[in-house]
C-alpha cells in the first residue's frame, strides 16, 4: 500500500507542478515572471547604457558590450535588408528567452514550495516559474515574430510584389497557362510555410523547456515524501543529487542553445522575408 500511496503522491505532485496559477483564464504566473524578467533585462541594459562610458568600460558594461557585439555580428552576417529593428529585436529575444529559460535552473520546488508555504490553501497554490515552458508565452513570441516577418516582407517588396509572390514563388512558369497552373501549389506551399514558422519556433522552445522541467520534476520525485528515518531515502538522495546535478549542468547548455536558436531563426526568417525571390 505504501508504494501506491507514494505513486498517488507522486501523481499529485507532478500534476500540481504542471498546473498554472490561473486567474480568469490567464496564466498569471507565466505573465508575472515574463514581465518581471523583461523589466530586469530592460532596467539592467538601460542602467548600463546610461552609465556607459566611452573610456575604459566597467566589467558589467564590458559584458553587455560583448553580448551586443555578438548579437550584432550575427545580425550583420545574416540579415542584409534594411531594418534598424532587427539587431535590438534579436538581442531582446536572446536575453529574454535566456532569462526565462534560466528560471528552469532554479531548484524546481524552491519558488512553488515558498508559494505553498505562504498560501492558506497549499493544495491550490499553483505556481510555474518557467514562462517558456508555457506554450502561451512561446506562441505569443513566435506570433510577434510572424507579424514582423510579414511587415518586413511588405516593407522590402511593396504590397503588390509581396502578395504576388504568394502565387508566383517558389514555382516559376512561362506563359499564362503555366502561371495559373503554378498559382495553386504556390499559394498552398506559401500558406504552409508561413504557418509552420511560428508553430515550429514556439513548439521547439516550449518542448525543450517543458521537457526539461518535467525531468526536473521526475528527478525530484526520487525522494518525494521521504523521511530521514527511512532507509530508502538515504539510498535515493545521492542518486537524486547526481541525476539533478547532471541534468542541471546539461540544461545550462540547453537553455542557452534554445535562446540562441530562437534568436537566430528570427533573424533568418526576417532576412528571408526581406529577400527577393
Amino acid at each position: 500500500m505504501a508504494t501506491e500511496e507514494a505513486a498517488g503522491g507522486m501523481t499529485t505532485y507532478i500534476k500540481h507542478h504542471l498546473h498554472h496559477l490561473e486567474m480568469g483564464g490567464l496564466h498569471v504566473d507565466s505573465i508575472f515572471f515574463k514581465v518581471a524578467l523583461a523589466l530586469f533585462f530592460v532596467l539592467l541594459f538601460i542602467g548600463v547604457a546610461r552609465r556607459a562610458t566611452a573610456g575604459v568600460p566597467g566589467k558589467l558594461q564590458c559584458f553587455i558590450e560583448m553580448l551586443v557585439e555578438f548579437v550584432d555580428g550575427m545580425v550583420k552576417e545574416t540579415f542584409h535588408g534594411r531594418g534598424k529593428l532587427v539587431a535590438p529585436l534579436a538581442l531582446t529575444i536572446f536575453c529574454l528567452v535566456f532569462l526565462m529559460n534560466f528560471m528552469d535552473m532554479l531548484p524546481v520546488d524552491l519558488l512553488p514550495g515558498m508559494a505553498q508555504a505562504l498560501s492558506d490553501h497549499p493544495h491550490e497554490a499553483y505556481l510555474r516559474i518557467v514562462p517558456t515552458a508555457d506554450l502561451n508565452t512561446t506562441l505569443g513570441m513566435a506570433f510577434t515574430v510572424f507579424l514582423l516577418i510579414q511587415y518586413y516582407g511588405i516593407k522590402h517588396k511593396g504590397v503588390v510584389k509581396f502578395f504576388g509572390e504568394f502565387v508566383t514563388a517558389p514555382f516559376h512558369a512561362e506563359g499564362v497557362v503555366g502561371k495559373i497552373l503554378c498559382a495553386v501549389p504556390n499559394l498552398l506551399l506559401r500558406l504552409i510555410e508561413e504557418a509552420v514558422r511560428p508553430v515550429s519556433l514556439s513548439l521547439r522552445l516550449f518542448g525543450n523547456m517543458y521537457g526539461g522541467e518535467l525531468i526536473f520534476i521526475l528527478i525530484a520525485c526520487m525522494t518525494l515524501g521521504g523521511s530521514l528515518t527511512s532507509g530508502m531515502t538515504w539510498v535515493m538522495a545521492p542518486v537524486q543529487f547526481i541525476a539533478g546535478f547532471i541534468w542541471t549542468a546539461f540544461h545550462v547548455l540547453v537553455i542557452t542553445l534554445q535562446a540562441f536558436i530562437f534568436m537566430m531563426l528570427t533573424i533568418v526568417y526576417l532576412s528571408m522575408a526581406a529577400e527577393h525571390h
Partner: protein
Amino acid sequence: MNIGITLVIQGLAFFAVAWLVMKFGWPHIMSAIEERQKKIADGLAAADRGQKDLDDAKAQAAEIVKESRVKAAQVVDQANRRSNALIDEAKGTAAVEADRLVAGARDTIAIDAARARGELRTAVAALVVQGTSQLLGREVNAAAHADLLERLAAQIEQSPASAQ
C-alpha cells in the same frame, strides 16, 4: 506532501552546478572581459600618446621655425653689417688711394714744373747771354758775369712764380 528533503537535494544539485560554473566557466568570461578592458585601455592610452606625440612634434616644429627665423634674421643682419663694413672699407681704401694718387700726381707735377723751370732758366740764361753778347758785340764772359746772370735768372724765376 513532504517536499523538504527533495528540495534540499535540488538545492544542493543547483549549488553544485553553480560551483562548477563558477570554477570553470566564470574565469573564462572574466578573463575575456579583462582582456577586452585591457585592449580598450591600451588603445586609449596609445591614442593619448599619439596625440601627445603629435602635440610635442608640433611644438617642436614651431620652436624650430621660430629659431630658424631668428637665425635667418641674424644672418641677414650680419650680412648687412658686413656689406656695410665692406663698403665703408672700400670707401676708405679708395679715398686713401685717391689721396695717394693725387699726392703722387702733385709730386710729379711739382717735379716736372721744377725741372721745366730749371730748363727754362738755363735756356733763358743762355738766351740772355747770347742776346747780350750780340748786343754788346762781344762775348760776355759767362764766368765773369755769372753773378749777374744768376741774379737775372733768379729774377726770371721769381717773376713767373709771383705771377702764378
